[in-house]
């Protein structure tokens, strides 16, 4: 009888389920992620815009900053943006796996463990705020902390999966770099950094919704309530037009309030008119199936050039004024 009982136990232990439970190497040991994958987590392409607008805020601000401290401020902004981007990767791993554009990112492709991405994001975020506080000042550091929490928590974790206005709200996080760059130099929050914030805030919806129009199917597949998916194309097109109209006075405001000269003013007027001209066909048309969304693609591309050119004009204005080539504005 005893051998029968022993045989029964052995048979139980030799089932595939028990094998999986008992074998210590049931799951293959994951390979450590390549350092390039950590770099990818920081969204380097988005980072270029963050660094550019941050530098513009820094250079356009009245006053001066030691080059080493200026470099450190931009580095801290970039690290903060990278940290919050890594947290975004970690939180949206499942969604990314369902979209063609994002399926090959380090987490959904399985090249990295989720906890590594999370820890990397937290480490970068905390270090960036500390660096900004110690080297530049705690007002700039507090703004950076707000920007990180805004993007990683308020936008990514809370509002993005819940509201079709996610892009409007998310625009706020992208609007922080020139704001922080400016107050890194001045050490105070005045009207101009708030206007720089407002420019990017108003620019984001037409920029991103143009992309969302021709990437609609991807977002629909993973259940993100992007405007074209939830409210439909017609409503999205109207809102692109509304935000483009609202962006124009905000972009021209720095000149209108006398904070910049005619150099920035004329560039802002021309660029805003062009933006309107590109947004008009996107906003007014009803059928978009015959030209593969060409006007939407053109608007998306132009919106990127628009922001680069507008901020470059802001810096050029300040440099010309500092060299005595033009008169300064009343906030100069």
């Amino acid at each position, binding site marked *: 009888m005893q051998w029968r009982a022993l045989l029964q136990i052995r048979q139980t232990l030799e089932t595939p389920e028990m094998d999986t439970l008992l074998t210590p190497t049931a799951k293959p040991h994951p*390979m450590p992620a390549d350092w390039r994958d950590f770099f990818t987590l920081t969204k380097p392409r988005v980072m270029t815009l963050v660094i550019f607008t941050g530098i513009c805020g820094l250079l356009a601000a009245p006053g001066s900053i030691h080059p*080493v401290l200026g470099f450190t401020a931009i580095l801290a902004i970039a690290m903060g943006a990278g940290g919050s981007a890594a947290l975004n990767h970690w939180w949206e791993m499942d969604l990314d796996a369902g979209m063609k554009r994002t399926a090959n990112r380090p987490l959904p492709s399985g090249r990295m463990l989720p906890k590594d991405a999370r820890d990397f994001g937290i480490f970068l975020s905390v270090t960036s705020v500390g660096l900004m506080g110690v*080297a530049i000042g705690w007002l700039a550091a507090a703004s950076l902390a707000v920007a990180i929490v805004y993007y990683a928590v308020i936008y990514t974790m809370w509002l993005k999966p819940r509201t079709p206005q996610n892009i409007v709200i998310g625009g706020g996080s992208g609007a922080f770099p020139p704001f922080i760059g400016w107050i890194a130099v001045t050490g105070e929050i005045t009207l101009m950094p708030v206007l720089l914030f407002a420019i990017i805030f108003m620019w984001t919806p037409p920029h991103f919704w143009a992309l969302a129009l021709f990437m609609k199917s991807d977002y629909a597949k993973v259940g993100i309530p992007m405007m074209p998916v939830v409210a439909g194309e017609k409503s999205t097109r109207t809102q692109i037009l509304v935000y483009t109209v609202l962006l124009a006075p905000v972009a021209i405001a720095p000149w209108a309030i006398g904070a910049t000269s005619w150099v920035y003013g004329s560039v802002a007027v021309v660029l805003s008119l062009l933006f309107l001209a590109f947004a008009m066909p996107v906003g007014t048309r009803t059928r978009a199936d015959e030209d593969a969304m060409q006007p939407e693609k053109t608007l998306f591309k132009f919106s990127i050039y628009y922001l680069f050119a507008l901020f470059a004009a802001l810096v050029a204005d300040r440099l010309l004024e500092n060299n005595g080539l033009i008169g300064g504005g009343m906030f100069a």
Partner: protein
Amino acid sequence: MTPEEEAETKRRQKARNLVVGGTLLFFVVLFYMITIARIGGQ
């Protein structure tokens, strides 16, 4: 783990160590320069 996987793991660990080491060195130099800049500004 196959010998190829083991070699790849070692290569990645070495590359990561070099990047971390380089980053630490960069921050040592940066903090030195920040200190000099801030002392000079006072």
